């Protein structure tokens, strides 16, 4: 009645085993052209030139955990008296892994009173966001934040 052929069972297990092995062969995945850390570095160099980057003064507010990368609130503020002698000329924001390293450039001046800008950005992956401020004495100050994104933006399919 229960005539199970041991040979075929062994063969089956053998085949299943080799099939499992085959699937561990590296799968080539196609990824969109992401901005690499190298692109981030060169985008920063485009703005900063040969000047030194200092850490501090800049505060970058981005939520550390983002559910939807399509709209991420972001605020950059810089500690500055905003006087004609000492003010923030511009604020530049970059990312590491979107298709493009730039997010936005904001140009302000002593009349701004407070060096703070807010907007909503897109993030295509969990990554580092960098904000750089250029002061009136042409020094550059930097702040960076690591953000975890669960739903990526920019490269998804259009429905």
């Amino acid at each position, binding site marked *: 009645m229960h005539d199970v052929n041991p040979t075929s069972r062994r063969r089956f297990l053998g085949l299943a085993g080799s099939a499992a092995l085959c699937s561990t062969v590296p799968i080539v995945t196609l990824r*969109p052209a992401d901005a690499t850390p190298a692109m981030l570095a060169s985008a920063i160099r485009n703005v900063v030139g040969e000047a030194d980057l200092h850490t501090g003064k800049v505060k970058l507010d981005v939520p550390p955990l983002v559910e939807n990368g*399509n*709209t*991420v609130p972001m605020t950059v503020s810089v500690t500055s008296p905003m006087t004609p002698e000492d003010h923030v000329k511009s604020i530049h924001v970059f*990312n590491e892994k*979107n*298709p*493009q390293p*730039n*997010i*936005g*450039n*904001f*140009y*302000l*001046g002593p*009349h*701004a*009173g*407070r*060096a*703070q*800008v*807010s*907007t*909503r*950005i*897109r*993030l295509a992956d969990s990554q580092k966001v960098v904000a750089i401020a250029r002061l009136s004495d042409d020094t550059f100050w930097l702040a960076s934040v690591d953000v975890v994104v669960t739903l990526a*933006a*920019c*490269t*998804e*399919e*259009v*429905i």
Partner: protein
Amino acid sequence: MASALINVPKTAKRGDIIEVKTLMSHIMEPGYRHTASGQMVPRDIITSFTCRFNGTEIFRTDLFPAIAANPFITFFTRATGSGKFEFEWIGDNGFSETASASISVE
């Protein structure tokens, strides 16, 4: 149909620092997405936003595809006198919109 939302206080004291909030409705298509059939969706974004007060530029932004749809930008400025804020958005495919807001400073 594009439309702008501007939030500027109607009155302020001289020397006050006021917040200017702006929102322009725009799709901000980044140009990196494709349809189910594999076609690339061309880029369509706002590339530049400028704010002038009584004709003088007080704030400018370069926008990139990494700015979310319906760009919402806020910044600060010092109330120096009564006048008019003029806002201008320029983008791909000849996109150009303006808006304005008045403030009276005492």
